[in-house]
């Protein structure tokens, strides 16, 4: 298996599709750290923007929550780093939690209270840890931006081969004719080679957001080209108002 990550979503994350999960008593979600670190009624913002002992305690408890989320993320992505030992894994989680704490504190003023503060905090640790795991997983892999497309198509059975081949050829043609060289290279790196978007952004000295935008435009152009050539049904909105 390559370091491509999870297969793009057939798993539904939508509301109501999780298996029997219910909201629980808020007190039951407290961690074992300080007794009230995860509690719903804690005034995290107030404590973190105060001074003295209250702030110190809040920072310490917050760091514990971030380490927990970072460890959770390392465990989920462990398959990408098969040679990572238990001690190194914990070091990685702690370092990511440190980084996440810095980012979070820098964005405290953007907390809108739309989610629990602890949930809001978790995501910083998850993002930071996922970035670091992906970066390490790809550290020894050279990423050459390629224009090359192999048209070997995997199909389920002979009856679907012709159709699948036709669409694959049409997509390849669309990529050649409708995309700029840069768009084509980014689309190939991200979607064909499976390079994670944050890893590619770091290598190219750009941002995840900028690469996703490039990909978004490339996909729109491919779809428009396929519709014009009769390979996708017309009338499906794909281009917004542009």
């Amino acid at each position, binding site marked *: 298996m*390559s370091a*491509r*990550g*999870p*297969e*793009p*979503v057939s798993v539904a*994350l*939508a*509301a*109501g599709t*999780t298996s029997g999960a*219910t*909201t*629980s008593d808020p007190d*039951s*979600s407290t961690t074992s750290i300080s007794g009230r670190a995860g509690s719903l009624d804690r005034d995290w913002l107030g404590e973190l923007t105060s001074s003295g002992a209250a702030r110190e305690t809040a920072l310490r408890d917050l760091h514990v929550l971030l380490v927990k*989320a970072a460890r959770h*993320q390392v465990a*989920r*992505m462990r398959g990408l780093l098969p040679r990572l030992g238990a001690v190194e894994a914990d070091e990685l989680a702690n370092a990511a939690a440190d980084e996440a704490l810095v980012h979070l504190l820098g964005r405290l003023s*953007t907390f809108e209270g*739309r*989610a*629990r503060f602890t*949930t809001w905090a*978790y*995501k910083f640790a*998850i*993002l930071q840890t*996922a970035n670091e795991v992906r970066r390490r997983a790809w550290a020894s892999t050279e990423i*050459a931006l*390629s224009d*090359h497309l*192999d048209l*070997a*198509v*995997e*199909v389920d059975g002979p009856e679907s081969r012709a159709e*699948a081949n036709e669409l*694959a050829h049409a*997509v*390849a043609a669309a990529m050649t004719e409708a995309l700029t060289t840069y768009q084509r290279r980014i689309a190939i790196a991200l*979607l*064909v*080679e499976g390079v*994670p*978007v*944050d890893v590619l952004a770091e290598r190219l000295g750009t941002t995840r*957001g900028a690469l*996703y*935008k490039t990909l*978004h435009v490339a*996909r*729109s152009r*491919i779809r428009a080209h*396929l519709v014009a050539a009769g390979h996708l049904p017309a009338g499906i*909105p*794909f*281009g917004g108002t542009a």
Partner: protein
Amino acid sequence: MTSHQGRLSRDVVESLTLDTEPWLSCEECFDLMDSYAEAVVAGTEPRRRHDMEVHLRACPACFQEVESLVALLQQDSAD
């Protein structure tokens, strides 16, 4: 390079032709993912659900992170 070696597999063709309108950036996805994950766990309607679902189908990194946050919240509420 990876084992994919430039192959236009069926999954890749599907991904290249995904309709990713309406536009949602990874940054906006990050901003929304906490309330989204809580809604998923609670079984309520997430804010900007459609936009999030379109993005998560199209962006494996964000999907991986949101999926992880949902799992962590579920784990918390089970404790």
